[in-house]
């Protein structure tokens, strides 16, 4: 899978994102690094922030499209 469908899922889940990036770490289309910075994440623990990302990407995570996911989130803008 290319990074674009993942980016669209994240943009839908985090419309307020000030930083949003998806990187294919290996070029193989299944190991991704996701970076999200959004005011809507402010005040949440890292566990809750990462849960929001997992929820946004539950379809590609569930069907095995994403083999490995690294997440970096921030609450501030």
């Amino acid at each position: 899978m290319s990074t674009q469908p993942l980016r669209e899922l994240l943009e839908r889940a985090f419309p307020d994102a000030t930083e949003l990036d998806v990187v294919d770490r290996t070029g193989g289309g299944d190991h991704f690094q996701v970076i999200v910075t959004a005011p809507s994440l402010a005040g949440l623990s890292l566990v809750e922030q990462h849960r929001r990302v997992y929820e946004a990407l539950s379809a590609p995570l569930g069907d095995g499209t994403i083999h490995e996911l690294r997440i970096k989130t921030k609450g501030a803008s």
Partner: protein
Amino acid sequence: MSYTDKIKDVIEGSDVALFMKGTPSFVMCGNSDRALQALRRAGAPVTAVDILPDPQIRQELASISGWPTIPQVFVKGELVGGADIVEELEQSGELAATLRDKLGDDYAAARDETTVTLG
């Protein structure tokens, strides 16, 4: 058979529980290794559980914790996160602070590492 009770016993009964692919002496996944190394740097007394022997362990763990990926780290029964979070908290010093807070100032004295096999 169900692993749920055994998984809950480890989560609730361990100072630091690490659910991982492989064991500390034979790690089978880069992310499990990242979490283990971060915990070691913080001096955490780790109780490690290998989830690979049966896919059901992973499924039941996910429904208990609500966390979809491996590894998973718990301190005193509370989910701290996966490899990315544990690494980030170790680097910022927050992991050591949490361990001191929950386990006491001398938490690193024992430095013991336990491996639990479910089954």
